[in-house]
C-alpha cells in the first residue's frame, strides 16, 4: 500500500517543481533589481509607469468586452444546439476548436484583408472599428475554451426537460434562458470567462498587429530594454489572473443551490491555458 501511495506523491512533487520552479525563479529575479538586496523596486518602477496602467486598463476592458460578447454568442448557440440540433453538436464543436488550429497571425491578417479600407465593412479605418476587431479576435481565440466550458455545463443539467418544464409553465424561450438555463450554467460561464480573460489579457499577436496599446505588446516592449521589470510584470500578471479567478469563483458560488460545474478539458487543450 505504501509503495502505491509513494508514486502519486512523487508525481505531485515533480509536477510542483516543474510548474512552480520557473515561477519561484522569476519571482526571486524580480526582487534583485537593487544589487545585493531583496527589494520590491522593480514592482514600484512598473506600477509608477503610466504606460503600464494604461495598457493594463485597455487590455482589461477589451478582455471584459470579449467575455460579454463570447458569452452572448456561445450560451445561446450551445443551448440551441443541445436542444434542437443535437446532430450538429460535433460539427459545432469542431468549428469551435478551429482557433486552436489557425494561428492568430493568420486570423489577424484575415481580419485586415476582410475588413480593410477597401472592403464593404471597413472596420480598420476607425479606432472603434479596430477595437471591435480586437475584441472579436479575443472572442475567437477563447472560443474553444468558452464553448467547451458552457457545453459541459449544459451537459450536466437536463436542458431538454428543464426547457419543456418551463415552457409548460408558460415561460417564453427568452425567459427560460434567462431564469432557468443561464443560472444553472453560471459557474460554467464564469469558468469560460476566466479562461477568456487570462487568454486575452496578455495576448500579443492580434493586439500588436492591430497596433493596439494592450498589455501584451507593453510586456514585450519592456522586455526588450529592461531586465527586472519584465520579471515583476510576469509575476503581477500571474497574481492578477489568480485574483480574478478567485473573485469570479466567489461571485459564481454566492447563491445557495447553484450547481458547481467542474469543467473538464481534453489533455491537448490544457497546455494552452495560460
Amino acid at each position, binding site marked *: 500500500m505504501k509503495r502505491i501511495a509513494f508514486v502519486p506523491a512523487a508525481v505531485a512533487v515533480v509536477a510542483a517543481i516543474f510548474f512552480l520552479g520557473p515561477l519561484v525563479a522569476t519571482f526571486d529575479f524580480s526582487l534583485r533589481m537593487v544589487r545585493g538586496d531583496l527589494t520590491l523596486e522593480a514592482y514600484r518602477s512598473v506600477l509608477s509607469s503610466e504606460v503600464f496602467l494604461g495598457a493594463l486598463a485597455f487590455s482589461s476592458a477589451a478582455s471584459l468586452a470579449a467575455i460579454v460578447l463570447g458569452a452572448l454568442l456561445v450560451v445561446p448557440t450551445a443551448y440551441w444546439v443541445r436542444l434542437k440540433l443535437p446532430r450538429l453538436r460535433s460539427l459545432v464543436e469542431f468549428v469551435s476548436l478551429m482557433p486552436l488550429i489557425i494561428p492568430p497571425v493568420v486570423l489577424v491578417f484575415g481580419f485586415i484583408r476582410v475588413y480593410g479600407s477597401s472592403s464593404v465593412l471597413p472596420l480598420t479605418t476607425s479606432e472603434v472599428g479596430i477595437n471591435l476587431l480586437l475584441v472579436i479576435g479575443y472572442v475567437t481565440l477563447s472560443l474553444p475554451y468558452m464553448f467547451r466550458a458552457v457545453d459541459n455545463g449544459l451537459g450536466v*443539467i*437536463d436542458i431538454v*426537460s*428543464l426547457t*419543456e*418544464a*418551463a*415552457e*409548460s*409553465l*408558460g*415561460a*417564453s424561450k427568452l*425567459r427560460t434562458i434567462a*431564469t*432557468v438555463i443561464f*443560472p*444553472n450554467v453560471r459557474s460554467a460561464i464564469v469558468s469560460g470567462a476566466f479562461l477568456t480573460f487570462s487568454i486575452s489579457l496578455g495576448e500579443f499577436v492580434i493586439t500588436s498587429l492591430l497596433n493596439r496599446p494592450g498589455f501584451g505588446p507593453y510586456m514585450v516592449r519592456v522586455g526588450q530594454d529592461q531586465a527586472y521589470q519584465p520579471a515583476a510584470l510576469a509575476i503581477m500578471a500571474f497574481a492578477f489572473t489568480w485574483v480574478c479567478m478567485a473573485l469570479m469563483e466567489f461571485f459564481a458560488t454566492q*447563491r*445557495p*443551490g*447553484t*450547481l458547481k460545474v467542474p469543467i473538464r478539458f481534453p489533455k491537448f487543450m490544457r497546455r494552452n491555458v495560460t
Partner: protein
Amino acid sequence: MSYLTLEKVGKIFGSSSVVSDFDLAVERGEFVSVLGPSGCGKTTVLRMVAGFERPSFGSIRIGGEDVTVQPANRRRIGMVFQAYALFPNMNVRDNVAFGLKVAGMDRRAIAGRVEEMLSLISLGHLAERYPYQLSGGQQQRVALARALAPRPKLLLLDEPLSALDAKIRVSLREDIRRIQRELAITTLFVTHDQEEALSIADRVVVMHRGRADQIASPLEIYNRPATRFVAEFVGTLNLFDAEMAQPGVLRFAGLNVETPMALTCRADEKIVVGLRPETLSLERRTEDDLSVTGTMLSTSFLGAVIRAQIDVDGRVIRLDMLNRGAGRLPPIGETVELRFSKHDLLVLSN
C-alpha cells in the same frame, strides 16, 4: 363535446410513422392512462398534447379550442416528467411559484397559492430546500405541485413513477389519484406499467405500434381485451391455436367447445383463444367444466398466489391458485387435469 379530443392524430419522424390515426376523447375531470410498451408512441401522443411536438396530421382540441399549432407555453398545461425536471437553481418554494410568476400574479397571491400547493403535497416543511436535498419521491411531489399551481386546464404525467422505488411508487400513485379527484382536473397519464395504468385510471388506452388498440375501463381491458396484443400485454395469458370446427364450435387442445359468444369467423379460419391463469383450476368446480390433461412442470410461490407451470401437449400453461394455507400441491411430474369454464375463454383474432 369532450374536454380533450384528438382526431386522426398522426406523427411522422423522418420516414417512420410513430403515431397514426389516433383518436381519443377525454371528458372533463376524467383520468385516462395511456399504456403501451416502449416505442409504441404513447409519449409522442402526450408530447403532442403538451405542444412539444407538432402533429403531422389531425387536430387536438382542449376545452373546445383548437390547439394543434399553438405553442406549448400558451396551452396552460401542467406537465410532470419522469426525470422530475425541477429547476436546480431554485428552492421548492420558487419552483412551485415559477408558473405563477410567469403568469404575472402579484406577490401575495403567489405566496398564498404556493402554501396551498405545498400543503396539498404535505411538503410545507421543505419549502426552503433545493431539489438536490430532496428524495426522488419528494422531488416528484414538488413537480406535481409546480404543475398544478397555475391551475392548468389539463394535467399530463409522463411516466412520473418510473424512476421511484416500489413502495414510494404505490404511495405517490395513490396521492396523484387523490389530488386529481380533489381538484377534478382532467388528466392524461402515460405509463408502460400495466398495474399502474389499471389501478389509477377511469379509462385506459392501450397503444400498439402507434395506434390505440383499445380504449376502455380497466376492468373491460382486462376481462374483455379487444385484440391479441391487448390480451397479452395486460396481465398473463395462456394462448391456444384454435379453429372453427363448425359454426359455433371451436376446436383447440383436442377439445370441441361450443362457444358462449357469437363468433363471425369462417369455418377453418385460424383463431387464437386465451385463458387467464386465475381462471384455470386443478379441481372440478362445476358440472360444465372443461378439462385438458397435462404434466406438472414447476410451481413458484408468489405470496398470495401460487403459480404452477403445466405442460399440455408441449405447451407450457400457467395456472394461478390462491394460497389458502392448506391443501396439497401435485408433485412435479404428476399428471393433472386442468379445468376451466368455457365462459372464461377469450377468443382473439390472430
